[in-house]
């Protein structure tokens, strides 16, 4: 287990360094002058040149790269070109919001998706199966921002049960009110996907010999489904959840915008629009670390769920 973690950490380091280099190059290939963006359209050429000098943008590329890598290694990611606030502080201020939304919506997706996937598989080609398949198809086809606006219209305007601005804090009820609609909006898509994956994984397992044997031995059907079928079907489901966890951190941007929640998605879109090199670099590092971390967690989960998978 320790050897496995060390190996994964080494791989993560190589990945991280490659990403840092790529990110550095990509943000500088982008057209547009960060100084112009920072100072605005009113700024004269002298002020622009002074800012480029202050930000080090007039230095050769290699010098900027050396400075960037040194900063990244020492934890100094610089300050945002636009706001002047430290990059790490800007990211840390919104990261908990993104993690919270991702985890809650994922939990919601799994809690809805896995049972419905199992039920659909068990009742294959019956009414419940058809309804589940159609519902999950609809869930997948609906863009997150459309479901978000519909949820707001229905549950914040027509029935004023939830706030439109879903970023209230201070009490458990305020938190619950703020997280519910965004998590449902994002969780619906996950639930749809997990339902479909669970159904197909379960169908495959349910046709295995050991399931037939368990039933022949007179084991009650619910126990067969839970202990013999679902446990063996969990590997593809975990894979999907792991993948989704990474993707969802990025995908949450539309949900964050519509529900007006702070988050990494909004931060990266703003940094991109404003050519905030320092912020973009910091964000990419965080995204990479998060995805690598989730992948490691997924690998560990495989071993825990299925003893046949060795952590080698």
């Amino acid at each position, binding site marked *: 287990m320790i050897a496995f973690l060390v190996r994964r950490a080494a791989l993560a380091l190589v990945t991280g360094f490659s990403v840092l280099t790529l990110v550095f190059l990509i943000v500088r290939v*982008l*057209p*547009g*002058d960060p100084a*112009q*963006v*920072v*100072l*605005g*359209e*009113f*700024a*004269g*050429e*002298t*002020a622009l040149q*002074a800012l480029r000098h*202050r930000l080090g943008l007039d230095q050769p590329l290699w010098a900027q790269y050396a400075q960037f890598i040194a900063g990244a290694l020492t934890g100094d990611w610089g300050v945002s070109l*636009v*706001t*002047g*606030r430290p990059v790490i502080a*800007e990211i840390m*201020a*919104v990261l908990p919001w993104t993690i919270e939304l991702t985890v809650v919506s994922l939990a919601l997706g799994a809690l809805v998706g896995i049972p419905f996937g199992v039920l659909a598989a068990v009742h294959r080609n019956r009414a419940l199966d058809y309804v589940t398949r159609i519902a999950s198809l609809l869930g997948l086809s609906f863009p997150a921002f459309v479901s978000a*606006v519909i949820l*707001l*219209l229905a549950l*914040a*305007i027509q029935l*004023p049960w939830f*706030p*439109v*601005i879903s*970023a209230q804090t201070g009490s458990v009820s305020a938190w619950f009110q703020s997280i519910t609609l965004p998590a449902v909006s994002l969780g619906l898509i996950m639930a749809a996907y997990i339902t479909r994956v669970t159904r197909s994984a379960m169908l495959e397992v349910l046709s295995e010999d050991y399931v037939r044997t368990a039933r022949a031995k007179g084991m009650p059907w619910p126990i067969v489904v839970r202990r013999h079928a679902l446990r063996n079907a969990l590997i593809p489901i975990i894979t999907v959840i792991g993948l989704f966890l990474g993707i969802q951190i990025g995908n949450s941007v539309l949900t964050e*915008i*519509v*529900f*007006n*929640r*702070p*988050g990494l998605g*909004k*931060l990266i*879109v*703003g940094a991109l*629009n*404003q*050519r905030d090199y320092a912020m973009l670099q910091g964000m990419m590092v965080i995204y990479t670390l998060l995805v690598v971390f989730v992948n490691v967690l997924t690998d560990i989960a495989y071993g825990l769920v299925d003893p046949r998978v060795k952590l080698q």
Partner: protein
Amino acid sequence: MRTLLALTAVGVALTLGQPALAQKKELVVATSQADAGKLDPHQASAGADKGILNWMFNALVRIKPGQASPEFIEPDLAESWTSNPSGTEWTFKIRAGVQCHGNYGAFTAEDAAFSLKRAASKETSAFAGDFAALDKIEALDASTLRITLKSPLPSLLGLVSNYHGGLMVCRKAALELGDGFGKNPIGTGPFAFVAYQPQQFVKLAAHKIYFRGAPQLETITYRYIPSDATRDLAFRSGEVDMMFGRQTNQWVERTKEVPGAVVVAMEPAELNSIYLNTKSKPLDDVRVRQAIAHVVNRKAMVQFTGDKVAREAISVVPNGNLGVAAVPLSPYDPAKAKALLKEAGYPNGVKLKVVQSTLPVLMRLMEALQGQLREAGIELDIEPVDHPTYHANIRKDLSQVTLYQAARFPVADVYLNQFFHSRAAVLQPTAVTNFAHCAAADQEIDAARIEPDPAKQKALWKAAQEKIVQAVCAVPFSEQLVMWAWKDTLDLGYEMKGSLNLMPHLTEKARFTK
């Protein structure tokens, strides 16, 4: 009887003891910006930042709240001012008893001098170029400030007004906080900075010892809501009291239907013009430029944008600017446009390169123009790029036709100098936004700048506008107003006609009537 009296007494006591229906003291404003930029008045470039800074800072003079014209300049931190006959030396008497936010003490002429020097320094200000004409800034004593100019400026009062770099910072706070000033802005205005939550809000509280009197609102929460739909819904649900609107007729009609909503179209309007690069072929031939001017249908462009949020342009300078003249613009005449192209040697039309921002509001306008120009055989080869790239590339002279939407300090001198003086042509160290490389009226623009007689100055500005229109450096077509909505229970304390910062000015008088 005694019981009855006792019951009556209890009833009266209970009635009198009931608290009156509390008047709302907290205002929530929603802007379309995604997050706060630098909250430093000398560095903030985004409209949404400049707006909120106006609630926290004062200037030497201000444009009367609710107005957007320099005709309405009135005292602010300066009680009075005088200038020498040639207009090169200005003396301001600073108001006594003005207190900076926090524990930063009284505001004096020393603070004013420091602030102007800070605004004029390219190290600390995005507006340093605007202050280039200032020669000396001196605090003669605690209440007297003297500004000496290198040459007269028609808009010196505009420069020291509550617009861009004119807002005054408190010296002690700026020195103590250094680069952190933008995170904890200290001014003298009716509202003081309290807190900032990334991507959520900036919170302000009443500056109780504000020199014009304690503000009636207790707090302002300035929320960043970039999604138009969410802003509308938050306004509808009552979570927001005032919001930045959309520049479409549909938005106006829909918002007016919200119970208790007031919808306001604010001055100054932003002028929409296309700037024609007079140095590039075939636009170096004035007949080609005239052809373009004849095929742009201003009326249709206004209808396209929405007549509730736009109006026809009247000159190359925005309507409402001091010195704007309604010069005759080319009438819509596609046949004449074709004839002019033929005469210029382009009977089969011309093809022009356009670098265009993908911002929907600008892209829609350019696509409509593309359709109109096609009527005369003028083909626009549009290269869509994101907004920062558009700004960079049009300044590199990469676009033959540049669509630009702008409002500036409303004195013709500013617009003419920035967009039409050869000094401001792109690709030069002194470049601003002369994308056309226009040099048609340099003499008149320069002469107007130093003309002390206001009538003659206006005549020179008019002559400059006529020459620019004749040279077809630009084809102005429409002006877009800034839209806002707020609850009818919010009384701003003045009649709203406009605001230079494109955001309602919230003063100590703003209050809720319920």
